[in-house]
């Protein structure tokens, strides 16, 4: 590795799309001649807002499309709020991609259950794109997506297209809704009993708040899914992205390089335990 992994590269903002009241999608194009590095679904970049700081954000675009780099994030802190205010053409620094990826090869020939909670839908969009682009390689594919309210649902136009497909089962639920909502209301785990995947031959990919992932894993296990067939994605404080700064440790794992995608049986002893 000769290139300095702490050096950030200039990307220009092509578009900022507001997804919900606090979530937006960045479309970035590199300045100068650098090519967008190819990434595997599940990986993340360290994004830098000039003079403000850097945060790790999952890549949420199509791995097969190399013209733009896409990230979806919430505006929660100084850095993401600074990014949100950028105009077309302004600069964001990009370092990466870092981290482990979803088990796309292993999932071939199996049913695939994607369970997304809230902003967790963003890092699950890349594997879904890849699954759909080589649809025949996989068995039944389920997207189970839970959000707080209907206004918090991401990628609504795409969702409608996915719902229309006959080779994909999309079930959406929200925690609460007003009368106009004709969809499901209830936690995302309630969608699992209704998805008829074959637990002996299924790979599950789960992302959301840790509590949601815990309950989801329990529900999947109830259906007979083995721990080594469930994959989750974790988040921790990161300063470097490649295992030098020590901040992202979770037990013996560095979430930046042993994760963020983890096979559940490997991380189980340290997952869901307080303050590890």
């Amino acid at each position, binding site marked *: 590795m000769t290139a300095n992994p702490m050096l950030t590269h200039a990307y220009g903002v092509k578009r900022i799309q507001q997804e919900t009241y606090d979530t937006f999608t960045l479309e970035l194009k590199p300045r100068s001649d650098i090519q967008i590095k190819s990434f595997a679904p599940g990986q993340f970049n360290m994004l830098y807002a000039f003079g403000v700081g850097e945060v790790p954000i999952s890549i949420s675009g199509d791995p097969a499309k190399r013209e733009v780099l896409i990230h979806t994030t919430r505006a929660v802190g100084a850095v993401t709020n600074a990014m949100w205010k950028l105009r077309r053409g302004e600069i964001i620094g990009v370092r990466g991609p870092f981290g482990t990826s979803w088990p796309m090869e292993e999932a071939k020939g199996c049913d695939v259950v994607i369970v997304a909670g809230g902003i967790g839908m963003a890092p699950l969009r890349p594997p879904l794109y890849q699954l759909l682009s080589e649809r025949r390689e996989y068995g039944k594919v389920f997207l189970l997506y839970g959000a707080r309210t209907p206004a918090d649902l991401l990628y609504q136009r795409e969702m409608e297209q996915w719902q229309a497909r006959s080779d994909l089962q999309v079930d959406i639920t929200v925690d609460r809704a007003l009368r106009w909502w004709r969809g499901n209301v209830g936690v995302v785990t309630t969608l699992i009993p209704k998805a008829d995947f074959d637990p002996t031959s299924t790979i599950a990919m789960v992302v959301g708040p840790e509590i949601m992932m815990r309950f989801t894993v329990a529900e999947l296990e109830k259906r007979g899914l083995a721990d080594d067939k469930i994959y989750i994605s974790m988040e921790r404080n990161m300063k470097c992205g490649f295992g030098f700064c*020590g901040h992202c440790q979770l037990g013996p794992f560095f979430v930046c390089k042993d994760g963020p995608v983890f096979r559940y049986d490997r991380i189980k002893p340290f997952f869901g335990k307080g303050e590890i």
Partner: protein
Amino acid sequence: MGPVLHIGDKVVLERQHLQQLLDALGKKGYRVIGPTIRDQAIVYDEVSSLKDLPVGWTDEQNAGTYHLKKRADSALFGYVVGPHSWKRFLLEPEVRLWQAKSDEIGLKTVGNKGEMPRFAFVGVRSCELHAMAVQDKIFTAGEYVDESYKSRRESLFVVAVNCVQAGGTCFCTSMKTGPKATSGFDLAVTEVVNTERHYFPAEAGTEIGASVLGEVAHREASEEEKAAAEGAVEKCSKQMGRTLNTAEIKELLYRNYENPRWEDAASRCLTCGNCTMVCPTCFCTTVEDYTDLSGQLAERRRRMDVCFTMDFSYIHGGSIRYSPKARYRQWMTHKLATWIDQFGVSGCVGCGRCITWCPVAIDITEEANAIRESELSPKLVT
């Protein structure tokens, strides 16, 4: 000077000739760093003369205590380790990673292109050699390499000193990291000082070490002199101030995340982070971003960080490890257990610094032993 020396040749240097070693290193362009007294402690800084060393001084260390005391003799290396470790020269405490200009062309990052310094460390203990090897695994052996660290390590000249007197908080024998230096040095010396003589049996560990040794007045070591050196080191290995039972310590700590002993330690721990600062293997860093007033020039700096802060594990409006108990537990289980899964070796080299420099005298060996013992008896040890 005599025939060309080779690795492993055992020679003897007289005390009065040792200055030639410092001179030779200086002439070769090394920045010579060695132990010296400052602020009533023995620290590591630039030295050029034997007079800069803590001649005739020793350190008395115990949990939460450190004093310097005058010795009866005028040994040059008659102490163990102080609050500094060599990591401050290999992994700088604060370094500018890059500068960027936000102009029309874009984020033009300008990397740090300084000249890499060449260091010679004089007075490195065996535990410290192991600590450097541990950090090598982190910064040079993985997929990513810290180029600055690598360059400093590669150009480094190491004069190791075999300990002949153990410190009050030392436990290198428990961690199998000393007291005898066995590898990782260019030169290794043992100090033998008594009423009649003051001499240094020495050997080279590398070709470059052999060539430097050749420039210092030396003669072949006699059997007696070799035995004196070995005997002194052997005696030292029996004087350790502490012991740590490392049998299956990783598994022990992995199954004791909920042991009440952690609460006990937390009730004493100030989360000051002294232990991380003096520890020769602690490597965590953080990154700080700055701009100038115009907002046109930005800079990123890296500095050493401490896992005991609330900031360290902060995400989305809260710290993962919000209690002092969790933060103490993180430091200790990382050092003794998870480090092994991460890097294949223990993070602890038994130097005892964390015990000495803890303001409330928390002792890592005592904590580990207490957890082990709590499994043996039904009554939990507090």
